[in-house]
């Protein structure tokens, strides 16, 4: 207990000393809080909180294609909706998809990997060959294929990205599990008569967590871009639900006359993904001191 607490404390100290990672953490926290707030607003208040600044077809204040002004800092879109309000609301879709997809992939992938690494034999061969097959596709092409098969919706984007990212976790979990299985504490647990499930879930998995956590944070960045790409192509969340990728796509037809419709949501994707990458790099340095930070960015 005390050993693991001190390890967490040390990692946290190291993360706090990394200014870029702290900036990343701040932005990520902000976007996640925004996502949570808009989720609450949509679920419990029927968009009451955002509706006041969002859209009112009867008011001249919501005329279409208005340039940024104090009343509408990011301008209005083709229907007269406030772009800032929609950008803030778009955080919900991005955060929801990225977090769920990565958590699904992490849980499924880690279990497959740990089981494969710990069991060996036929289980390992079958599991890892299946992982190789999934890695045989360019990520976005596989995601498009899965979404095409299941239909265009938010949930199906989550499933598609979840499937696409399973191999990353499975591979890391397997190699960690292989390394951990050689450790004395696993032998000790075996000698004490614990079941294989107990050993895998309670002994091997917790000790393989650091690399999985780092991977999760970095994949979150990829998942946000992937979700935005699918929404941009019209394969993800369907209008009128605001999503950053979908908003960039709508604005693409008005690039010369009303560039703000595309520019602001795109900028939001950029800043959020950058923050996740900074945080992921910081976490890697903090949790895995063996890898010297000067060897890479």
């Amino acid at each position, binding site marked *: 207990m005390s050993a693991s607490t001190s390890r967490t404390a040390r990692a946290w100290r190291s993360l706090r000393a990394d200014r870029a990672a702290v900036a990343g953490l701040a932005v990520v926290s902000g976007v996640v809080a925004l996502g949570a707030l808009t989720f609450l607003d949509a679920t419990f208040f029927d968009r009451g909180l955002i509706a006041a600044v969002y859209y009112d077809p009867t008011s001249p204040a919501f005329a279409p294609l208005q340039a940024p002004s104090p009343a509408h800092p990011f301008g209005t879109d083709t229907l007269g909706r406030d772009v800032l309000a929609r950008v803030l609301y778009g955080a919900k879709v991005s955060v929801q998809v990225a977090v769920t997809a990565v958590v699904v992939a992490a849980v499924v992938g880690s279990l497959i990997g740990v089981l494969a690494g710990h069991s060996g034999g036929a289980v390992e061969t079958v599991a890892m*060959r*299946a992982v*190789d*097959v*999934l890695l*045989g*596709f*360019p*990520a*976005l*092409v*596989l995601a*498009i*294929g*899965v979404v*095409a*098969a*299941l*239909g265009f919706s938010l949930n199906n984007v989550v499933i598609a990205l979840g499937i696409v990212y399973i191999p990353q976790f499975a591979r890391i979990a397997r190699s960690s599990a292989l390394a951990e299985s050689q450790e004395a504490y696993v032998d000790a647990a075996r000698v004490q008569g614990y079941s294989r499930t107990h050993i895998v879930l309670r002994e091997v998995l917790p000790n393989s967590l650091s690399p999985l956590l780092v991977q999760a944070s970095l994949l979150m*960045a990829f998942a946000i*871009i992937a979700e*935005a*790409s699918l929404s*941009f*192509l*019209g*394969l993800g969340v369907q209008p009128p639900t605001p999503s950053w*990728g979908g908003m*960039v*796509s709508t*604005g*693409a037809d008005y*690039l*010369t006359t009303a*560039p703000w419709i*595309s*520019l602001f949501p*795109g*900028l939001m*994707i*950029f800043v959020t*993904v*950058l923050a996740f*990458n*900074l945080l992921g*790099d910081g976490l890697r340095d903090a949790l895995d001191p063996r890898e010297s930070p*000067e*060897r*890479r*960015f």
Partner: protein
Amino acid sequence: MNYARYVAVRVLQTLPVLLGVSLVVFVIVRAAPGDPVVNQLGIEATDANIARLREQYGLNDPIYVQYLRWLENVVQGNMGRSITRGGRPVTELIASRLPATLFLAVASMLVAVVIAVPAGVVSAVRKGTTEDRAVTFSALAGVSVPNFWLGLVLILLFARWAQVLPPGNYVDPLVDPVEGLRHVILPAVTVGTAFAALIARQTRSSMLDNLSEDFVRTARAKGLPSRTVIVRHALKQSLLPVVTVAGLQFGYLLSATVVVEQVFAWPGMGRLIYRSVFQQDYPTVQGAVLVVAALFVLVNLVVDLTYSYLDPRVSAS
């Protein structure tokens, strides 16, 4: 293990992956909503017509029979016919679209290497300076920027406002090389940006490894000019892992082109897949995804074999 044996083993390992890929593609398309026969018949979709066509296409056979028959046809180069594009053979559609995608992918790779290798070298040689931090941050920004948005920003800046470059639109470089190159610049920069970031990272880290090696110290001690030491000795040694990373990230390029082709109206594989998904043209989706995935697997194989040929320690282990 000698090299010939290593090649044989790696090629044999690739076959089950390709088979698995084909199975996944087949299953995905079968799981798709809508009945292809009803789609194809349109208003002539009477019960009798549907039953006749199902029988004709062998859709009443067990699913594994259908898979094996499809696979047999694919191996012979027959991927069926498009449902929407006047019944053109899928193979023909792919053959007409693949060159545009490959041209874009190669151009993007060139753009990326030309920017990233010098940037990575400067960053490693001047480690800890402002230049290093600028390259480091630019690389991180490069992997973080959504490519479809970057494409739109570049179109806005260079095609609409400055009007110095065309906003994409493929021109066959074999027909008109100058215009072909002018039209590929913006899409290639768009796809190449994130790729450049990955290559710059790899160049920097392998340069850092080599700069602290004995052979570099020896070269410096001999009094060789700094430029010679960096380029002839350290960089030469550093390029192997860089080339490997570039090759292994080919899949990233293919993923990126799917989206970017849409932004620049580029008539390649990405646009073919995207359009076919919307039109529920499943034979085309099936064929195009299979070809892209197979291409990806084979490029990885070639990169791996080249790498192990150049660095025998890999195949020995």
